[in-house]
């Protein structure tokens, strides 16, 4: 935050930070313009200007006669970038939390031997997470990683850490991501987790990550709530 900035921008920065830190979460009402003006000793017109700015960014929504509420912008996932879900959202000022639904080791068997190009008897680390933005369910993500590349991965708490953190500590450098994007109807349990009706529409993104040694180090499928996410791609 910069003291030389106009006051309304300083207040907008402050509110952005509070939303990103989870102090205000999705659906929370912000204090009224008047209360906010009193708290910081500024004019209510200045407060109104900050609210308008954040509304434009999609972080707030003002409802006539009800107040100002925290919401989530539509996030554009850039398919050109190798970047985790978390950093996409955090760049938009959205506070990301994870609920770990399952984590553990299993044998590759037919499915992952084929997808990850390993032996059927090799171990695979599987992780299922619900990803929330400002407390709102945005995606259900399934990851599978060959255990031989990331020994010790089961020690990580994926509520806090990302797979990219694990790769960094194992000197794994992802050089390409091969992605397939589909539009499908969602079924339970994913529908329930995303607070959507069964048979409503979601994006299903499947991808393989390849590292600098040419190994398939991850297979991921993500059910993305289409209410909050759009995809962007630039092709040459």
């Amino acid at each position: 935050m910069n003291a030389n900035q106009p006051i309304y921008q300083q207040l907008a920065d402050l509110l952005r930070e509070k939303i990103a830190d989870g102090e205000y979460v999705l659906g929370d009402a912000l204090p009224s313009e008047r209360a906010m003006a009193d708290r910081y000793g500024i004019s209510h017109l200045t407060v109104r200007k900050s609210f308008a700015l954040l509304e434009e960014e999609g972080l707030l929504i003002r409802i006539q006669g009800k107040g100002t509420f925290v919401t989530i912008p539509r996030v554009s996932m850039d398919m050109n970038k190798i970047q985790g879900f978390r950093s996409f959202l955090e760049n938009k000022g959205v506070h990301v939390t994870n609920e770990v639904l399952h984590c553990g080791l299993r044998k590759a068997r037919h499915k992952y031997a084929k997808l990850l190009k390993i032996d059927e008897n090799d171990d695979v680390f599987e992780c299922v997470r619900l990803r929330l933005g400002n407390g709102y369910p945005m995606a259900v993500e399934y990851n599978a990683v060959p255990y031989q590349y990331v020994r010790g991965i089961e020690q990580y708490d994926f509520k806090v850490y990302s797979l990219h953190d694990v790769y960094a500590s194992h000197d794994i450098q992802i050089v390409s991501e091969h992605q397939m994007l589909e539009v499908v109807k969602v079924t339970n349990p994913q529908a329930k987790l995303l607070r959507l009706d069964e048979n409503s529409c979601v994006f299903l993104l499947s991808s393989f990550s390849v590292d600098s040694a040419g190994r398939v180090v991850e297979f991921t499928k993500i059910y993305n709530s289409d209410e909050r996410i759009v995809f962007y791609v630039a092709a040459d």
Partner: protein
Amino acid sequence: MSKYTQLASENVRELIEEYIDEHHLAPHAPLPSERRLCEAFDINRVALRKAIAQMVNEDRLYTIRGKGTFVAPAKYLESTISCISFTRCWGSGGYRVRSDVLSFDVSEANIKISQTLNLSLGTPVYELRRLRYVDETPISIETSYLPVSLYPDLDEFDFSGTLSLYGVLEEHYGIKIARQQQTIRTMTLSEKEKLMLGSPKSDHAFYTVALGITGDGVCAEHSLAISRSDLYAITYIADGSSGR
């Protein structure tokens, strides 16, 4: 919801996928009866039906009432990397592509189109609506907007059949689209759109907004496409160098 159910349907699904692979079931091949699959997997019918319902929803299987469950064919894959023109992209993938021209008019750019193409409001633009086919299956309805000033007499070309719009822009007008930006959303098809697209079972579709830009940064084409999601998927390879 218990954590167990999280993976329960995934596990049954894995068994079905493995069965399809190991028995080399080709697209449109029938799955064995529910009873036989339940015995083979040692699971109950509810669990099997749940997994099958999910695979039908995700276009991996399809069912025909009274006949059973069948393996769905793989989706047509549009690779968006180095593949800008529909005709060139699909043609090179071994698919036969063609178009019907639904309309081809000159209109005044409304605010959305003028802003996207960086024109002033009301600038004349071509509006070309095409129904695109892949292997004789209607797959998308595409509306392209192009500034008239860049392409005099473009409307004398007949884009029905296999003529590529980007090919014409390049060969006849010397305008080469170097880069295409796409935003991909979902949408629900109207009854009319469903009919045009050959009545797919699903109401859901891709809605893609694209902007074609030349090497000099000229916005040379803008298009809106509605594409069947049951037959079509978008693939893209991101590599470390292309992060923008």
